[in-house]
């Protein structure tokens, strides 16, 4: 085992906002000043531009270090915007890091997109050569694998037709075929597997695992946990530009999924609340009837909504009304619910506790809903004590609400109504027979 890729303290900083708003004159003025060691007359007054808290810059990748051994298949996982694509761009030399360095042993081929450099006027054959050479192969290497590439792509009959007459599916297949036959010791792959029809995707995954087992080193960037689990032997997790975990692929996926589900919504620091504030809701949770925390729920599930409160005890509220307003993500009201509406009153409030609202058989189609709450001193005309709009998101997924298991889309209606159907043999209504219809 030897290290073939060594990433040392790599960082990448991007400038936010308008880039290049400056004109040549100002640019020269600044450079001239810096060159003479004088302060830049055009520098922002906030001070050091490299400051970590600087609002004009974003560290897309920050102090990332890791080693990759020969033969490793490393999965890089993270949310959108976690910096994994930027890291990939640095490793494949599309952009230079702001600081740090990368040491590489062997030829690197990066596959950030399929079909890079296809020229529409040229034939499939010419494009295989051109594309292969762009990806770092020599002419001879492409020639040696040409038949195999064409066979893999399944476009043999059209190989001498200009690519502009290909369907988009054919282009993608040809492009992936070229990429799959790259002869590089280190292969960097972005989520390009999501191309083509299901059968071709299967073929691609098969080819990928073949490459992976062939002793080559692969860096695979994805947020498809299943693909990482199957293909990779190791995994690293990125979050906000930093490498937060490194281990086997299974551990990395476990870490990633644990970190994605922030289950308890803490509301203590929300500054958009209103009301007099004697009783305050400080956190909200979604649980199933057995008490387990949930991140999302299925249509038809029984759910418990926990609203943790703090009571400063300065006043008593014998007719306290805790109201929930559920809206779609566009703000259209879906339903409202409150304890007094349901016939339950909370007379004596402890200093800490939780209001729990059970919703049986959640009658909502799949979508992300928003929950707002209002705590009033009475059901009607009450004084507002505490309220936050959009306090919690409620992601609902398809579930078994109806006996058929089907759940209509939200476009068909914002709520699910249970019903029973039957058929009867009955005479026509009077109005119809009177009008002469037989």
């Amino acid at each position, binding site marked *: 085992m030897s290290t073939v890729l*060594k990433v040392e303290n790599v*960082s990448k900083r*991007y400038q936010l906002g308008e*880039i*290049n708003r400056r*004109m*040549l004159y100002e*640019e020269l003025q600044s450079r001239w000043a810096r060159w003479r060691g004088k302060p830049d007359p055009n520098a922002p007054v906030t001070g050091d531009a*490299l400051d970590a808290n600087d609002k004009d810059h974003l560290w897309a990748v920050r102090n990332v270090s890791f080693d990759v051994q020969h033969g490793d298949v490393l999965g890089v996982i993270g949310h959108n915007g976690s910096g994994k694509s930027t890291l990939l*761009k*640095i*490793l*494949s*030399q*599309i*952009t*230079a*890091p*702001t*600081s*740090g*360095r*990368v*040491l*590489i*042993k*062997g*030829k*690197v081929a*990066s596959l*950030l*997109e399929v079909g*890079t*450099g296809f*020229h529409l*006027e*040229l034939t499939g054959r*010419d494009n295989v*050569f*051109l594309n292969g*050479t*762009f*990806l*770092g192969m*020599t*002419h001879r290497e492409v020639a040696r694998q040409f038949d195999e590439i064409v066979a893999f792509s399944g476009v043999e009959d059209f190989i001498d037709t*200009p690519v502009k007459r290909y369907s988009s599916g054919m282009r993608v297949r040809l492009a992936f075929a070229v990429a799959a036959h790259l002869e590089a010791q280190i292969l960097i792959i972005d989520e390009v597997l999501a191309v083509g029809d299901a059968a071709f995707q299967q073929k691609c995954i098969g080819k990928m695992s073949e490459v992976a087992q062939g002793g080559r080193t692969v860096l695979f960037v994805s947020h498809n946990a299943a693909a990482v689990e199957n293909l990779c032997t190791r995994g690293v997790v990125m979050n906000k530009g930093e490498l937060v975990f490194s281990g086997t692929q299974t551990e990395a996926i476990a870490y990633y999924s644990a970190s994605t589900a922030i289950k308890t919504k803490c509301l203590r620091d929300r500054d958009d609340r209103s009301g007099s504030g004697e009783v305050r809701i400080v956190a909200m949770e979604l649980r199933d009837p057995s008490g387990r925390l949930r991140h999302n729920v299925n249509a038809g599930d029984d759910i418990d909504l926990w609203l943790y409160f703090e009571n400063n005890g300065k006043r008593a509220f014998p007719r306290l009304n805790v109201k929930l307003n559920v809206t779609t993500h566009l703000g259209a009201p879906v339903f409202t619910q409150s304890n007094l509406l349901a016939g339950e009153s909370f007379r004596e409030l402890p200093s800490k506790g939780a209001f729990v609202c059970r919703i049986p058989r959640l009658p909502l189609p799949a979508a992300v809903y928003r929950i707002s709450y209002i705590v009033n001193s009475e059901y009607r005309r009450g004084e507002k004590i505490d309220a936050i709009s959009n306090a919690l998101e409620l992601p609902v997924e398809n579930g078994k609400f109806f006996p058929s298991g089907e759940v209509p889309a939200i476009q068909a209606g914002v709520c699910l109504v249970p019903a029973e159907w039957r058929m009867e043999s009955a005479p026509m209504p009077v109005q119809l027979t009177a009008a002469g219809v037989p």
Partner: protein
Amino acid sequence: MKPKPEPVEDLSEWSSVITAQQGWFDFRFKEIWGARDLIKLLVLRDFTASCKQTILGPFWFFVPPIFTALVYMIAFGRIAKVTTPGTAQYLFYFAGVILWSYFSASLVRTSSTFNTNKELFGKVYFPRLVMPISVLITNLINFAFQFALFAILFVPAWYFGAPAHPNWRIVVLPVLIFQMAALGFGAGCIASALTTRYRDMALAVTFGTQLMMFVSCVVTPLEKVPPDYRWLFILNPMVPIIESFRYAFLGTGVIQLWQLVLSFCMSMVILVVGLIMFTRVQRTVMDTA
């Protein structure tokens, strides 16, 4: 966050090292040599793609210089009555036009390197200099065709006693071609580096090359330029190239050796500056393009 000075270490076991900083003269010619197959294919692609779905096909290499020279002959020679002492007018214009069209095509195409290849550069790495180099080669091949046409026109004219006096100075031809290539490449690289930051540079380049033609002795011989302004023309490195070319083939002109040497040195400086600017810009251009 300045990079800390690091102790010198042996990096020879690594085949490539990606760093935040890169030396000024680190042009990575070895990498470019490794990508020679790509250059070859790009040149080929340019030729095959430009000949597809056209009526005249490869004849397009010859049509523009012939007609441009004809138009200049009529407009400047006949109508404006610019005289070309001691030479056949069509050879005079044709020589100017092929040299100039090499330079302007090379400059304009190289200057848009980053803009036209944005998609490609954002997705795959190969030595970026491959692009301007392939432009240079494509244009040189183009020039070779046009030069051959020039020779076809020239030889019979000379043989049948037209006023053309080729002389020993033809030996500088390879130097002229090298210098012309270096100049077009270097100026193109400078322009391409600037266009990534300032979009109006793209307009300035196209417009500027059009105007510059009139001060490059393409349509008027240097002899006809009043002596007071001649030094200004000499500062334009294309002037000595075009004038020397004519002097070698047609035997007329007022160009002197020191002027050619000066323009050669200027071309070399432009080449190196172009390389430096290009390699510096290419490292981060994809962040802003």
